[in-house]
């Protein structure tokens, strides 16, 4: 049992570091210009480039396997209420964050394609903030959380119809390094 916990803890540490690496927001820099982009890039920052230093020290609590938790939380049409099927996993993320003050997350809110783009930007933020509040109520410090809306700009699924729309209305929780 002990051994299995240790393995779990190790897996967790590696996984979270991996998540942190993968979820690092892609930034545009001069290096990305191979695609012919004309972005000035002068303002590109290196936020979350995969340096896992910010999440070191995790894995000490073997009972929390954050890597196996859901990181995408879906929302009903025209609604920003955290759904019942999200509560369990969000509580576990909250527990982890509360016990690891050096860990932090980005909450990326998204909307489906219906309606206007900037209004959907606001709807995406409402969803991200609903999750932020949920984490806050569950003991996570505001400094550990950043809510960012992408509106309808980054769908998971292209195409119109309830099937696509329901998958695109979401908040993605991403561990980031600081």
């Amino acid at each position, binding site marked *: 049992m002990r051994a299995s916990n240790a393995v779990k803890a190790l897996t967790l540490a590696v996984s979270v570091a991996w998540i942190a690496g993968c979820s690092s*927001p*892609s*930034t*545009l820099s*001069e290096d*990305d*210009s191979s*695609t*012919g*982009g*004309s*972005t*000035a*890039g*002068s*303002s*590109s*920052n290196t*936020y*979350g480039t995969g340096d896992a230093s910010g999440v070191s020290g995790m894995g000490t609590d073997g009972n929390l396997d954050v890597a196996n938790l859901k990181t995408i939380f879906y929302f009903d049409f025209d609604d920003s209420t955290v759904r019942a099927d999200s509560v369990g996993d969000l509580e576990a993320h909250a527990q982890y964050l509360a016990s690891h003050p050096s860990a932090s997350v980005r909450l990326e809110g998204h909307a489906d*394609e*219906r*309606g*206007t*783009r*900037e*209004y959907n*930007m*606001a*709807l995406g*933020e*409402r969803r991200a903030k609903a999750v932020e509040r949920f984490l806050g109520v569950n003991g996570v410090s505001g400094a550990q959380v*950043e*809510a*960012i*809306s*992408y*509106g309808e*700009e*980054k*769908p*998971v699924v*292209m*195409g*119109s119809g309830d099937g696509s729309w329901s998958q695109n209305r979401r908040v993605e929780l991403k561990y980031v390094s600081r």
Partner: protein
Amino acid sequence: MKKWFISTLLLMIAVTARADLVVEVTQGVDAPTPIAVVPFQASGLALSDDIAQIVSDDLGRSGFFKSMSRANMLGTPSTQEQVFFRDWRVSGNDYMVIGRIAPGVNGQVQATVELYDVLKERQIWSETVTGNSNNLRDVAHYISDQVFEKLTGLKGAFSTRIVYVTAKMLAPNNFTFKLQMADSDGARPRTILQSKEPILSPAWSQDGSKLAYVSFESSRPAIYVQELATGQRQKVQTFRGLNGSPAWSPDGSRLALVLSKDGNPEVYVLTLATGQLDRITHHYGIDTEPTWSPDGQSILFTSDRAGLPQIYSLNLPTRELKRLTYEGKYNSRGRLTQDGRFLTMVHQDSSGFHIAVQDLKTNRLDILTSSSLDESPTIAPNGSIILYATKKGGKGVLSGVSLDGRVRFTMPNGDGDVREPAWSPYLQ
């Protein structure tokens, strides 16, 4: 860095033709005026563009005219002496345009154009236009503007430009976004900005020299102001949360924008010279999508303060707030015509999201489109056409509709989804 950016920009301008938007007129006015634009005579000149064809297409796309097909023309006169008005009258034309192109100095060309009233057998207008031989499209659009104005009394808007965003999903979470600028007919597209992160809400300054837009390239939303002539750009001060919906004041000195730094989306006015930021909305609901009235006295914006999104107008000097839209449960992203009389917006009814126009004098609302995912209406500076984004065959395309709903066209594009059109003001 800046130098590199500018040279890339120039390179982009050079390598463009591939992704041209192709215009298809899908519906015209009940009785468009028949006109013949005869091929211009260009003896011994190898020209890159067919000026008469561009003029013919411009006029046809406006919906006011029906351009005669070249295949049906009995001759190609290029001087008044060669014109037999009776022939053109018999073939159903009210007006005709003829012209000839001669070489000028320093690689320039001189196009002499003549516009005739076929019924009265009278010349209406004639001008010799000098232009650069590699910018013949500019010459053509200028001629279109003149003909349009002489015959309709409305200032032509063919020499204007449009900007829009294209998006391509290469794989899940792998996108290419491009901010592009093209002629009003979709020709000569060039990339202003390319990014893997979203670009949206491009807005022209009233003098046509600058764009403001939202880019997520820093992994957070930020508003940028870019000088078109030089490519130089500046990031507007950013705040935690939303930074969106930039809108230039008519005098170009201020930007209305949306920030959620105080907890929820509110409309602010930024004075560009001083950096002074004034919050103008105060409500816990969503306030977004500001646009200025042409006199600069009011800001219109979308708000869900009554439960669902509707458009409101805030008078800046008096701070008087007025709700403008009542019909339907969703009216958002308003844009006003230059005379301030007509408000175009996205309106939802039981069949989806459509472009609608409201006469602010009578408050009559007309739904102009029947497709279900229409958005981002932008009005030509002469008020003749609304350009908007819609979906056709699952792809984002731009379409146009006249304010009276009688003229329609689409601009299909092979290169990804096209959205977020913004029509320039008249350009100098």
